[in-house]
Structures are given as C-alpha cells and as structure tokens.
C-alpha cells in the first residue's frame, strides 16, 4: 500500500502568503536581472554582420530553450523516477511544477524562433529536425499537464504522470542532438572548435542563460509551494467530507 508522507506544507501566516525573504529576494534579483539582460541584448550587444538586429532575439530565445530542455524537463524526469522509487508525492508535485514552467519556456522558444526565422530563412516554419522535435516535446508536456488536470489527485495520477514524464523526457536528448544527427538549417552554436560567437555576444548569452536559470529556480519554488497548498486544500476537503 502506498501512503503519502505526512509532510505538512509551510504554514500560511497572515499577510505573509507563505513567502520568505530569501525567495522574495530571489524574485527581485531575477526580474532585475532579466531587465538588465534586455538592455544588454537590445542595446549593448553588437549588431550581427549578416542577420542584423533581428539576431538579438537569440539572447532570449536560446536561454528559454535552455531552461525548458535543461533544468525544467530534466527535473521532471529525475523527480518522476524518484516518485516511482520512493512513492513520495512531494516528488510528483515538484515534477508537475517544473513541467508547467518547461511548457511556458518551450512556448516562448517556439514563438520567438519563427519570428527570428522569417526574415532570415524567408519562412516562419520549416519541418526542420530541431523545430519538429521541439514541437513534439511541447505536445508531450502539454499532454502531461492535460493528463494531470483531468485526473483526481493521488498516487494513480502521480504514477501515470511519472511514466509520461520519463517517456517524454527521451525527446530532450533527441532535440539536442537533432542538429548533429540530421541535415538542418538551424544554427549550430557549439561545434568541434568551440562556440561560434563573438566574445561580447557570448558574454550576453552567458549572462542571459544565468538569469533565466535564476528565474526558473524562483518560479519553481513558487509553483512547488502552490502545489503544496493545493494538496492541503484536497486534505481539508477530505476532512470536511468525512465529518
């Protein structure tokens, strides 16, 4: 028999909203960091010689893709495995929170990519391996969220979600390797000689990657707390029904 571990979520104190100073500071640093990133991307970074100003979309496009494919869906994968091994619903809640953030960042990637591609490739969309595998990944994790939304909370939903999360994650290395395995028109940033980028452009990219990663951590903490609050609401409803 599987039982949820009785880990009580952080109590909600009046006026605090269950928040902490460290998390609030992380939120402020992330938002200010993103605004500085916006300045660096739009005004500080040099204009790319061939593509012109539209290439500046890259500084937020690639970090969005990184956060989605790197931390977000990998956390879903790891926490899904941990749930299946330990049967602890805390891991299911972290996976669900991370999947939602991953879908949000994949959406940004899938919308900004075509807006960058249209003036460069002459088309918003091509069935290029990188684009197609990323779209498939988006569909998989949207299905994951729909599955969760349409099932009752508990171990059955957590088990099903974990299986979808693990199987869905298999697409992540395929997305990453797609531009190496198949012929593609998608730019290859890192090759055998290192990074194909001017040092000042590389600095802006690295900065934005760091800031987006911080933003991901902040959003994940907030979403996991909300999942815990949701689970507390479910427990209170059950308590009320049993009276």
């Amino acid at each position, binding site marked *: 028999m599987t039982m949820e571990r009785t880990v009580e979520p952080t109590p909600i104190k009046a006026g605090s909203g269950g928040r902490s100073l460290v998390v609030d500071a992380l939120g402020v640093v992330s938002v200010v960091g993103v605004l500085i990133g916006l300045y660096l991307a739009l005004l500080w970074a040099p204009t790319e010689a061939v593509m012109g100003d539209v290439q*500046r979309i890259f500084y937020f496009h690639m970090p969005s893709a990184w956060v989605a494919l790197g931390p977000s869906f990998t956390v879903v994968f790891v926490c899904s495995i941990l749930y299946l091994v330990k049967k602890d619903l805390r891991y299911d809640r972290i996976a669900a929170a991370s999947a939602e953030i991953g879908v949000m960042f994949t959406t*940004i990637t899938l*919308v900004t990519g075509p807006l960058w591609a249209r003036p460069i490739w002459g088309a918003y969309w091509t069935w290029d391996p990188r684009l197609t595998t990323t779209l498939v990944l988006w569909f998989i994790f949207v299905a994951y969220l729909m599955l969760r939304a349409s099932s009752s909370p508990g171990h059955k939903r957590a088990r099903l979600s974990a299986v979808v999360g693990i199987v869905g994650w298999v697409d992540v290395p395929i997305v990453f390797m797609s531009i190496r395995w198949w012929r593609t028109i998608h730019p290859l940033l890192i090759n055998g000689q290192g990074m194909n980028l001017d040092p000042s452009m590389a600095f802006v990219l690295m900065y934005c990657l760091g800031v987006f990663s911080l933003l991901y951590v902040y959003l994940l903490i907030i979403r996991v707390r*909300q999942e815990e609050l949701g689970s507390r609401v479910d427990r209170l409803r059950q308590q009320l029904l049993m009276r």
Partner: protein
Amino acid sequence: MSDIGFLYAGYGVIWVVLGVYLFTMGRRQVGLKRDIERLEREIQRES
C-alpha cells in the same frame, strides 16, 4: 514587417507570455489561500 518589427514582436511575445504566466500564478495563489481559509472556517464551525 521590417527586421526591427520582428525583433519587437519577439520580445513582446516573451513579455506577454511571462506576464500572463505570472498573472495566472498570482490568481492561483489568491484562490488557494481563500480556499484554505474557507475550508478551515467550515471545519472549525462543524467541530
């Protein structure tokens, strides 16, 4: 649309998606806190 138009559209989309997501999170937070307070009140009333 000019190159600059695509650039603005790209960054506009990013802020809209992020803004809608943060707004949704805020609404959800308020709803959850309200639900907990209401349920705790009902439980106290019945006990």
